[in-house]
């Protein structure tokens, strides 16, 4: 979060800075918890695609004084958070699972969360596909670390193929709900899939499968969640299911689509400087006048 006029535009943006959250998305997890109460009793949690770390902050603050282990994983470096172990690693890599499990002393996790999002291009079908792959990468890891009955929460884009994902998740979890916190703008496709009561696939050892290497695609094929490629490239039958929708957060909570009258006189410094974007060099060159339209 930067020091910008967005303070005036979005109530949650300002509030996050006031309350010391690294990103406004902290409120999304808090509001999801108001309905699903997953923060009330857990011992071990994994936060995937965690940078800049606002969800880890929530996990840490909400469970202070309790005996719990929080492990955050991201490819990007992340500033330390008290009570959170951060691992800089690729979530699809088999060794990452080992690292997480060793942090848990060989025990399994109660909760796996992921707020990861791709670089959105504006080509909706591509963006939704890449987001879905990110969810499947997180799910792949979750299937290997989650205990029976555990919970998996991930950011999704509610686009045209979301029913396929609901159907696939429904084969690993007893309950699948599409939840939208009030702090997530109604005008955006963003929502969160809350999957409760993990039921591991009978007869499969996810850890063994992971070590066999190969893509996420192959992993879920072996798990029986995805159909393999047809030798004549015939389309395979795809099961579509609509997950029930649940709006999260009190109706009296701030509305992320509304314009609020600005009463703030000054802007606040960000809690953490934002992660440097890949196009930082391009911005610098533009500032120096090297790049001109």
């Amino acid at each position, binding site marked *: 979060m930067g020091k910008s006029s967005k303070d005036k535009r979005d109530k949650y943006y300002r509030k996050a800075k006031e309350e010391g959250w690294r990103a406004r998305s902290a409120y999304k997890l808090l509001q999801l918890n108001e309905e699903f109460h997953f923060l009330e009793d857990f011992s071990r949690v994994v936060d995937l695609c965690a940078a800049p770390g606002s969800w880890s902050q929530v996990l840490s603050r909400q469970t202070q004084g309790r005996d719990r282990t929080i492990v955050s994983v991201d490819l990007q470096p992340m500033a330390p958070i008290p009570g959170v172990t951060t691992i800089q690693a690729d979530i699809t890599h088999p060794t990452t699972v080992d690292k997480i499990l060793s942090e848990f002393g060989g025990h399994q996790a109660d909760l796996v969360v992921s707020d990861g999002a791709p670089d959105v291009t504006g080509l909706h*079908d591509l963006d939704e596909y890449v987001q879905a792959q990110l969810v499947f990468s997180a799910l792949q890891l979750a299937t290997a670390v989650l205990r029976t009955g555990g919970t998996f929460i991930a950011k999704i884009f509610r686009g045209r193929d979301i029913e396929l994902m609901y159907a696939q998740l429904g084969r690993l979890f007893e309950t699948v709900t599409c939840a939208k916190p009030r702090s997530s703008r109604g005008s955006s496709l963003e929502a969160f899939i809350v999957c409760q009561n993990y039921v591991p696939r009978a007869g499969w050892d996810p850890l063994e499968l992971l070590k066999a290497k190969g893509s996420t695609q192959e992993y879920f094929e072996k798990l029986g969640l995805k159909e393999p490629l047809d030798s004549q490239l015939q389309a395979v039958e795809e099961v579509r299911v609509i997950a029930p929708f649940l709006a999260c957060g009190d*109706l009296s909570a701030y509305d992320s689509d509304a*314009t609020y009258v600005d009463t703030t006189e000054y802007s606040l410094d960000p809690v953490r400087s934002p992660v440097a974007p890949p196009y930082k060099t391009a911005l610098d060159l533009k500032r120096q006048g090297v790049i001109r339209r």
Partner: protein
Amino acid sequence: MFSLHKIHGIAALGDQIALWGAKSVLFTTLEETENGDIRELSANDWVVSVGLKLGMAFIQTAHNEVIEFDLDAKRVNQVRKCSECSILYSGQLYTQSNLCAAGTVLGGVVVWDYNTEQVKYNFTDHEGSIFYVQFSPCGKFLASCSDDRSIIVWDLETGELIGRGWGHASRIWSLDFADNGLVISVSEDCTARLWQANVQKKSLETIQVVHGHQGRNIWCLSTTKFEGDTVLVTGGGDGRIKLQNISQPKHFQEWSITDIVGQPEKGEHLKDYKRLEDRIVLTTSAGKIYTHVDGAWSRLDHTILDEYSVVRLVGDRFVVAARDGRFVVVSDGIYQFKVELVGKLLEAFPVTMEDNKPCLLLQTENKTEPYRIVDLNGETLQTFAPIQNFMITSALYHRGMLFVGSRAGGVAVSKGNEWTTTRRIFQTQDTITCFVAISERVMISCRSGHYGLFSPDTQLTPFYTNKLQRGSVERIQIQDDGTVLFFGFKTDKFFIWNSTHDYEVASEVCGGAHRAWCAEVNRADESQFELYFTKAGKLSLISKPGNQHFKQSILRTGTHGREIRGLEFSLAHQGLLASASEDTCVNLALLDKNDFIETKLSLRHHVSGIQVLHWSLCGKYLLTGGGREELIWWRVDVHDKDVYAMEIARLPTVSKSPDLRIMDFDLVETSEGSWILATGYSDSTLRLWRFENGSFSLLVTKKYRECCILNVHLIDGYLLTSATDGHLVLWHCRDGNIGEPLLRHQIHQSGVRCSAVQLIDGMIHHYSGGDDNALVAVTVNAQHEVTEVFRHNDAHSSTISSMALTDGKLYTTGCDQKVRLWSLEGQLLQSLYTSVADTGTLALQNDKLVAGGMGLALFRVE
């Protein structure tokens, strides 16, 4: 071609064509396509690229696998993979040497051999997702671009970086190699760039920037060779397909005063010049006239005029006018005439009188001296009383009337000898630069960038006015096909703007507006031009030979550059469709008999994204509203196949917040002929306005909780609203006042994205679609009691974003890209799929249903 998916790529080898998009692929030939003989196949994963080789196809998937498919046996032979299996944003195959390039989401470019499954290179110089990779035609080089906004060209023989280029203001989406060794890129910044490698500096340098699309994003490109020239084809987010000849060599030339006159007198400098066909006529400050023919300058006439002599093109002749009333006429021969003037000549404007007679309108420094029109023999044909404090800057004689424009933005018309009162026709005091007669209208332009179409009479009734954001409009030129071109300046550049299709034809650095200049643009080919201008005392020429190969540079016109938010058919004109978009444009289009939606007019008065649009019931007026509290009232006319629109009024802004948006509004006409308008805002306020005699007056402001109002309906003396809090609220709304809420009833879990109402036997029927996937129908009776008629919690699998109610049927659409038809009892009658993403608006007229989002889709309904 595909049942659900969009086409993301095309490859061709000989007759064989491969198309792919999402998980689908198909292999066909042009002949088969015409016979409708196509078969959609599935790669069971996102297809990044397809390569063809005799009888074989290689399908590269987003998991970096290559499926080897035998086109004759129609069987998969093998699936190849390498050690890198990160998700790909981009990829390409070079089948001649079995190479595969993979652009990963994590910044790596992996080049591997799909026969041996060995990784050849893993280039890691980029940061961020790799959006495109492209092999050179010879296979020796690879170009890549990423989220870091740079382009790199790699040497595939050595693995070295040959050059890296920076220059795009946003992300780069696609790349190609042109056969002349250039790399071409297209970007989110809506430009294409041509790059040349500088091997010493290991850089890529921009040699040309190409414009031609609207809004955001040029997504794709291709080049082709045509009679020795390279033609660039680009496709944009605006749906437009644009051609550009990028081989046109630009020609520069420069002449100093010595080059022109030989031995200049002390202090002698260039004054004015014009070009016609292959000849230039030029005056100097010494009062001498020169001409340039066949590459050589020569003194034209031994007459010495004065220091301020100007050159004008009158019909097919040059006329040099001096301040003392002497005129030199140059055509095949040369002659002089003199007009006896009281004051010194200020300006001479070419005008065409009846019988196409070329003449001049003269204004002198003497404020009481009449303006006069003289023919090219010096005979005065007509005089006009001078107008007080009016410095003429442009003139037109049309249908027996003289139209003049002034330096201070005033326009006057004379029929006979009487002037109409001078008035400003644009909201500016800037110079009126040009008048042009176009069929039944007069087009007028202004240095401020304003332009418009007016009735060709003393009333000058406006039909349409607009403002060019690009810069000033100095001259208007009508092409042979009716296309309107503007010539103007912006900072240090001269530009040619195609106003009919909204794109820049050319832009050349000349130093800015304050200088002598003249431009000749071919009326059959806008890209062929000569621009003359004075720079540092020299006469400079920039010329381009034109594209020569295609008449029209736009292959397909397209729609909006960003998401369409409002869409509605006029009730007055069959097939007249208005659309409003996040790109801030309001478009007016006509549906032709083949159901092709042809954009007739693009209005750019909004400065912020537009959220909503409605026609008045009479179909004469259009209202558009959106960001920054903007709401514009337009009058729309259709004459033959032409559409005109005029901004009539603008809603006053109330708040200081630049983020305040008008989310919805409703309009009713009163029995007294005035209008009542209700507006709903993103800060939870509701306002009621009266519109009368072209202006708005605020009647009442009401604040509803703290949320974002999404829907507003005026019906039967009530105001019905719904918002992001999921509630339906009914307000008394009579005598210009909004009462307290009569009821507040929750109908959705969260945002009510769309709603429709109708009154049946005194009962309000309300239909709504929400963020929560639900479609709900309720009735409100006279006692203000709500009864639920039906509720479908899973009416769509995502947000229901729009609905249209008509003739006892209800159409809905949502973010799941489905279009559904329901009976008013809640029965699902039909479900269709649209490839338009971010579907957010529906319009219906007779049997035609149009869905808008990222583009438009038209359905015929039964």
